[in-house]
């Protein structure tokens, strides 16, 4: 179809869709008038049943923990998929390294990295890591949790790369610990659920002691699952960054040699 035909078809369809959407959306309750039972019931009971003050994470890692298992594996499958798509093929690898190295040498000159940048990066990095760990481990108490903490931790290597320390970036992201974190996090979530099965209850039941509300070690498996998810997300995103930047990093390292 020509571009014009395609656009015309779509615009006609969109007009129809707009009418249908308006007709349907009008029947929604007005904004701000939440009526459904789920929210009311869960905010009443979550704190007492699970000693967790952050109800969103109580839902994510306990009431609807099975969904989060699936969601974590969506991330896992996507990382495996990207690794699969970017796998080096034997003959291509040699050609492209030569090509890329040549291009960069002609076009760009690597700028020297200023000391101010290096020092401030190291300071910020420390803060980021601590903050990421804090968010990932305090999911059951305050907003945050495994996914958010994991993403913060995974941006630390990117910061290192942006600050110019390519060698450190390469060393951190190719470490086998990253893969271990990712696969261990993903498999670990499943294993936590299986342990519940072996203990005789249903899959993903919260079987650890619930502790006191407001303590760090409270709410049973919610905290554990949050940490496990944080590991998986960190590992997954660091691997993604490494794969995307691999060719550029390799050519930069070669030039430095």
């Amino acid at each position, binding site marked *: *179809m020509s571009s014009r035909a*395609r*656009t015309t*078809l*779509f615009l*006609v*369809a*969109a*007009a*129809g*869709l707009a*009418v*249908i959407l308006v*007709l*349907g*959306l*009008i*029947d*929604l*309750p007005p904004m701000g008038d939440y009526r*459904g*039972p*789920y*929210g009311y019931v*869960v905010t009443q009971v979550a704190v007492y049943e699970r000693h967790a003050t952050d109800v969103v994470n109580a839902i994510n890692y306990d*009431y*609807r*923990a*099975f*969904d989060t*298992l*699936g*969601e974590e*594996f*969506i991330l*896992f*499958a*996507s990382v*495996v*998929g*990207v*690794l*699969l*798509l970017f*796998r080096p*093929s*034997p003959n291509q690898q040699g050609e492209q390294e030569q090509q890329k190295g040549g291009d960069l040498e002609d076009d760009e000159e690597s700028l020297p990295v200023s000391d101010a940048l290096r020092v401030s990066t190291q300071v910020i990095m420390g803060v980021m890591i601590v903050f990421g760990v804090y968010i990932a481990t305090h999911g059951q108490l305050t907003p945050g949790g495994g996914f958010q903490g994991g993403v913060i931790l995974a941006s630390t290597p990117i910061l290192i790369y942006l600050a110019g320390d390519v060698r450190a970036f390469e060393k951190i992201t190719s470490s086998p610990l990253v*893969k*271990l974190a*990712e*696969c*261990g996090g*993903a*498999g670990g979530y*499943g294993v936590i*659920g*299986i342990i519940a099965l072996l203990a005789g209850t*249903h*899959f*993903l039941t919260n079987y650890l002691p619930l502790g006191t509300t407001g303590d760090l070690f409270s709410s049973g498996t919610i905290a554990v699952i949050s940490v496990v998810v944080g590991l998986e997300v960190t590992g997954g995103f660091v691997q993604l960054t490494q794969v995307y930047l691999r060719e550029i990093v390799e050519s930069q390292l070669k030039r430095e040699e």
Partner: protein
Amino acid sequence: MTTLIPLPVAIPLIVAAFLALVGHWAGRRFCDTLSIATAGATVWASATILHGVWLQPVTYWFGNWWPRPNDVVLGICFRIDAIGAVIALLVSVLTTAGLVFSWRIFEETENHFQPLMLIFMAAMCGFSYTGDLFNLFVFFELMSVAAFALCGLKTLEPAPLQGAYNFAIVNTVGGFMIVLGIGLLYARTGALNFAQIGRSLGTHGDALVILSFLLISVGFMGKAAIVPFHFWLADAHAVAPSPVCVLFSGVMVELGVYAVARMYWSMFHSALAMHTDALRNVFMVLGGITCLVGGFMCFANHHLKRLLAFSTISHEGLMLAGMGLLTAKGLAGFVLYALSHGVIKGGLFLCAGIVLHRLERIGEDHLHGRGRHMWPTALLFVLGAWGLAGCWPFGTLLGESMISEDAVAQHQHWVPYMFIFVEAITAGAVMRVFFRVFLGWGERAPTDEASKVEEKPETEEHEHTPVMMLLPAAALILLGISITAVPGVRSAAEVNAERFVDQSGYAQDVLNNAQTATPEPKPEEPLRSSIVRTGIAGVLALGLALGTVFRRRVGRVMEFTRSLELGNSLLRRLHSGHPGDYVAWLSAGTALVGGSLMWLLR
């Protein structure tokens, strides 16, 4: 047995994580063996679950979160009835066949292929078992992400990436429509559990209910490749590796129709009850158009896998028609047809994979006569064609008989004739390939654009057909025959379908733990008229194939086969490979279906 229930989902996921960890260092054989063992264990687990739920469905609450007073459900449940269980069994069987087929091939994937297949299988099993709306979406997305990655596996050519990309864009837009629909349903009912939503929606269906039904159905029909949401299927199948195509055509697209059925019968039926006839007509029209478009494009294609992909689309139309009759018998027919078609199509795709492995080409024109010495594959191919024609002793006959009988009862008299058309044209196309490729009869096939897409073989060695490839193909075709051999299978299907369509019974079972009595077994009608109909289809298919192959010799009477083979140029041009086109058609289809629903169902 209750302990087994989460296992078809949990164990493959854990093993996949383990395989991804050790894949880089462990040998190929270890990874293959472990993944085949896991898939086999899942077959055993899902078969045991099927046995356990045969008489009474089981509800399993994750995290031990049972429903609360006033029908409030906070947790997620699996609500497994025989229909969901048998589909999960189909999933695990097809995955095992695919993994056995891919023994030691794809050497350079660093063992990432097996974890993705296991994740795909786990997601589809979870999809068939679940009783929660958002859980359904999560498994839908998990299934889709694994499928996108598997589809684009062969990264040495640009075509697989384009196919995977088109697949991903269309499916993801559909997925987001599903989320919108879920949001709307949640706004109305404050619940995510099928049973709870079904009870809350009550008996009146206003525009909001219709809109959410539209959005969720369109999302799932996009997965099911119903016209005009079908464009991605042919592209994806043309480039995905053969074991992955087995899963796509064998069960993934059928799950789309299953999801629409599940969603309708557990949530929307009583709200839309006053308009069942109108809704039936909408499904019938969509099914009919899908049959026609799929059938004509199937015959007009000469790329083996693309041809089979379009035949899947055509048969999907029949399945949507069966489900869309909105009766228990139609649903039972759909289930039987989906099971049989799944294994037969899987077997055919594995045969196509064997052809690619031995002869290194996949276009009908280049393969002419080169398959002469591959008689086991040729035999399986012919049997597959026979199965597509719905002839006895294949299970597709049973599905056809139930759907056709029920269609006539619902005054949809065109359905039996559409069956004959679809069976004749798709089986005819496969027979045509058999005559040209395996017997070398007639002249070469015309070269069309699609068949020019080269596919690098998936393997190195191609001197003889490995047993590991032939065995799963033969096993799948045999399964297609053995469905007919199960005594009382039609009656059992109908009994379970009766339970499936009983919305209040479903809600009572899930929310109040009050099990309903097993419905009375229905008498099975004689198969004679179906055997006659499918026999006619088979003869037509044979005639069409022979007439196309020997066109020059037979003369002018077969000239129409020439235009059939060249295909309608407008229809071909619409399948352009451009993702913007596909999404434009998706929007147009949504607007049309939505408009008809709003008009007819208010």
